[in-house]
């Protein structure tokens, strides 16, 4: 930032700063406070220690979150490229279609997946009708991952698309002029330039997937209790705010670590410099 930001600019930024302070920083401090106190308000590490019991749940949440993120990436990347290469009108329509499901609350959309996946649901009714064996889909981990992918994939498509649509096509031509084939174009131009979009897409899919509780409750049955479910139950059923806050804090730290690892990939190494090494 330039030295001596004008007063006007600072005034314009002020509401956002105040907002962030009140609704982001203060709540985080409250979470931290609860995590390190017991019900009498005394300082304690017990809440954090008890998290040992939930190691398996943490691992499962992160694992399913990773799978969902990977699937989203694989599905979204070609689609985003395809959209970005289309004509302007087509692009607008496609992006509207991607965002269309977001006009409806995701709780409702998840709920309707129950009706689709159930043993007597839409898919199985159809399968039986054409004479095939019905599949068992609901109440499995697969169903939970499906729910995550379905709910969060727009958050992967949109940032990748917005990076790709800004890509200067002359870079692609330069690569081809220098004798690059299709694979070179992808590896040396497209991929390095889309990394910022991919990274923010991964963040926006991974974080809500890891912390979700609704999807696992509705689609996972008893097979999949995620860390979000445990946190929800700590607050809603046990009224144990201290335990819930400790779990939330640890979850946040884990997510931050994952994000930091990923940002290293996008920030420093050759991917960012890729543009210069065509």
């Amino acid at each position, binding site marked *: 930032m330039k030295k001596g930001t004008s007063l006007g600019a600072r005034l314009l930024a002020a509401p956002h700063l105040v907002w962030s302070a009140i609704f982001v920083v203060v709540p985080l401090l409250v979470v931290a406070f609860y995590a390190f106190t017991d019900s009498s308000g005394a300082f304690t590490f017990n809440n954090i220690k008890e998290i040992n019991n939930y190691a398996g*749940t943490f691992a499962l949440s992160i694992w399913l979150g*990773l799978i969902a993120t990977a699937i989203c990436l694989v599905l979204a990347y070609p689609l985003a490229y395809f959209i970005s290469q289309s004509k302007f009108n087509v692009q607008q329509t496609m992006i509207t279609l991607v965002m269309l499901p977001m006009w409806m609350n995701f709780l409702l959309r998840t709920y309707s997946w129950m*009706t689709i996946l159930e043993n007597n*649901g839409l898919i199985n009714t159809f399968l039986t009708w054409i004479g095939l064996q019905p599949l068992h889909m609901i109440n499995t981990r697969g169903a939970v991952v499906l729910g995550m992918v379905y709910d969060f994939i727009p958050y992967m498509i949109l940032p990748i698309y917005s990076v790709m649509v800004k890509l200067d096509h002359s870079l692609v031509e330069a690569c081809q002029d220098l004798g690059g084939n299709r694979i070179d174009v992808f590896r040396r131009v497209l991929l390095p330039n889309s990394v910022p979009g991919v990274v923010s897409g991964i963040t926006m899919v991974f974080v809500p997937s890891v912390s979700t509780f609704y999807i696992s409750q509705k689609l996972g049955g*008893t097979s999949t*209790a995620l860390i979000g479910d445990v946190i929800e139950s700590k607050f809603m*059923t046990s009224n144990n705010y201290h335990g819930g806050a400790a779990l939330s804090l640890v979850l946040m730290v884990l997510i931050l670590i994952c994000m930091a690892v990923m940002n290293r*990939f996008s920030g420093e190494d050759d991917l960012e410099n890729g543009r210069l090494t065509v």
Partner: protein
Amino acid sequence: MKKIFAFLSAFMLFAFMPASVLAASAAETSVDPESLRGTTLYVYNWGEYISDGSEGSLDVNKEFENRYGIKVEYTNYASNEDMYAKLLGGGANYDVIIPSDYMIERLIKEDLLEKLDFSNIPNYSYIPEEYKDLFFDPANEYSIPYTFGMVGLIYNTAMVDEEIDSWDVMWDEKYSGQILNFNNPRDAFGIAQYYLDIDINTENVEDWQRAAEKLKEQKPLIQSYVMDEIFNKMENGEAAIAPYYAGDFLTMADNNEDLAFVYPKEGTNVFVDSMCIPKGAQNKAAAELYINFMLETDIATANANFICYGCPHTGVQASDDYDLKGEEVLYPASVDFKTEYFHNLSPETLSLMTNLWDELKIDGANNTAVYIALVAVVVVVIVIAVVSIIRKKRRENDN
């Protein structure tokens, strides 16, 4: 500008006149409903627990709004525990809540309920004697019964071809994946406790652990822990067996005639849900007006017909419009099994129960395959990182 305002207010006065005349004749409480016109009343109730105008029924809240000009903000909860968490969280204000017996006992103990002014609720006289002064509110100062009922087993006769009379069917491997259970600890533990013949209000740690073990044993057979989702799942034949509240069975049976109902021989939980006013209610007078309104015979009949729970109201029981009079499921002629109310538990036992419940929910999460997979991912990430660093170094050297 002033003229427009005057005209508008005159118009408003005119528009509401017939309603206010009607209101004055209908209510005989000491509260003047007119003074409450234009205020808002926050009602927090169970899901599917009021006649809401669907399928040609009476829209009770709308009726109240039309009559008194008080806006009803109506929201739902799925369990007593959810309601308690919301109430304790303090973020929202409610004027009327309808919790169950043991929760009312807890709320009274924790000083979270307002005493009712019974002079504002003359329709209390409709409550039969046996539903007054119940254990959770011995002097009957805080609550007025709304419904009662028992928990029983609902099963789909198309999927279960034996006669069921016991909770043990919920542990029968034959029905693996087709059994539902409550998604709230009190009701779920209650079933295990009846099955093991343990007192449902026990304060004994070992008893609770035994019940938890029993639930863990059952978990692999359970399709899902549910509350209101049960309606869809049982009506569509998605699950074969589920414990739930008797009144809701009647609603489900309307939509799927294969469903049958039984009270298990080991005994079951009986409950009363009562209308209360929580501490901090902003509109207590309107809340009492609302409670009195809910006890009017025709309103109570509409509710009783709609929600199908047992109705502790002499006016309804005498009314010709009541469709469920003498319904065997709601009003069994003889009860030859143990029935008990849930009582409020000590804080220690409550916390033990919820911890055991959390443990049950995550049971089976310790999966070595998941750990191995995660370690593999970490290894791959490290390898990629190392390779890219090496390549970068090499390139720098080249330059």
